[in-house]
């Protein structure tokens, strides 16, 4: 750790000068980064270093998102909606799972996030259920504010379950509460059993871990026992279900969980 500014890089602040000034060390002298003091000075520093004052702030970086999330939660409750936040890496089968779910379960709607295109919302609307796309541009996650703006675009008459398909990403979406009731994290058998170990934060807060594409398990040599052990380790509170949207395996259990 660099003692000069705390930036962690000792090479940024070469202090190759000799100085024998007397001053107390509560000062914080102003400097830019990457400077070098190659002069000799022996003056007292009092004039250049006014004492500092600490202002307590105590504010979470996500306080604003939390406010929107709490508003969403209130809105969902008022509408009688149970809301599921679906998280996974890209291509692990969120949209396919939802296509089958929206067809099978009455009273569902979906909000889907991607960086670009309406493709997923089009696929989901083809099921007959209301669905709205959020295109985030370059943003790697959905936040509660984006969701709040998408909600008025949905016709929620008769809808009791809302799915929010997050941007495919196992890192950033973990930090953003959207106001959901439950978090579902998907792990497809093609991704490797140890993925939950590599991305422990997102799995830690899962209410349900859904192992998807189980019809491909044998073909890709998926080690089921290893995967289950790892999931239980990083997501000790989560329930685990194994499904294949294509063959229908586990889909009844998934639907039962949605009502539990």
């Amino acid at each position: 750790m660099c003692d000069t500014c705390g930036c962690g890089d000792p090479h940024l602040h070469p202090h190759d000068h000799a100085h024998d000034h007397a001053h107390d060390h509560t000062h914080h002298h102003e400097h830019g980064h990457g400077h070098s003091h190659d002069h000799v000075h022996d003056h007292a520093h009092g004039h250049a270093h006014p004492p500092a004052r600490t202002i307590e702030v105590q504010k979470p970086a996500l306080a604003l998102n939390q406010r929107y999330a709490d508003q969403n939660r209130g809105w969902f409750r008022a509408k009688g909606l149970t809301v599921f936040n679906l998280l996974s890496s890209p291509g692990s089968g969120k949209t396919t799972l939802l296509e089958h779910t929206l067809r099978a379960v009455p009273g569902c709607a979906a909000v889907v996030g991607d960086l670009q295109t309406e493709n997923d919302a089009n696929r989901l609307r083809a099921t007959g259920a209301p669905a709205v796309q959020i295109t985030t541009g370059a943003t790697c996650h959905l936040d509660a504010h984006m969701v709040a703006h998408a909600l008025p675009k949905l016709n929620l008459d008769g809808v009791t379950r809302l799915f929010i398909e997050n941007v495919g990403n196992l890192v950033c979406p973990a930090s953003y509460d959207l106001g959901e009731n439950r978090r579902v994290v998907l792990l497809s058998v093609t991704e490797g059993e140890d993925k939950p170990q590599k991305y422990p934060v997102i799995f830690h807060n899962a209410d349900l871990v859904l192992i998807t594409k189980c019809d491909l398990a044998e073909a890709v040599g998926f080690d089921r026992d290893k995967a289950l052990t790892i999931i239980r380790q990083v997501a000790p509170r989560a329930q685990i279900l194994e499904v294949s949207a294509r063959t229908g395996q586990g889909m009844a259990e998934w639907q039962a969980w949605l009502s539990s």
Partner: protein
Amino acid sequence: MHELSLMSQLLADATAAAEGAPIHALKVRVGPLSGVVPEALRFAFESLIPGTPAANARLDLEETPLRFHCLRCHADYATPLGLYNCPQCGATDSELRGGNELELISIEVPDHV
């Protein structure tokens, strides 16, 4: 990747708290379950501060440990990310007591008497 937007928020909060004064230092608490990497946060900080009241500020990161309380044997323990079992009794139903923070604790500004 989202460290840049989170750091922007922390800097905006710091600037608001400073009420126009130059900022000497920001103290930020970050836990392993916050989903934020301290080094990426520092990088974002250095990228964002030029031209702001925090242009010459120091970033003090207080990295907190992941702490749990075992609901079975009531042990309090710290543990690395991904290993949550109670080291005393092996139970998995422990309650998170800290380690998911990302917050601006305080700032330092000049004390103009």
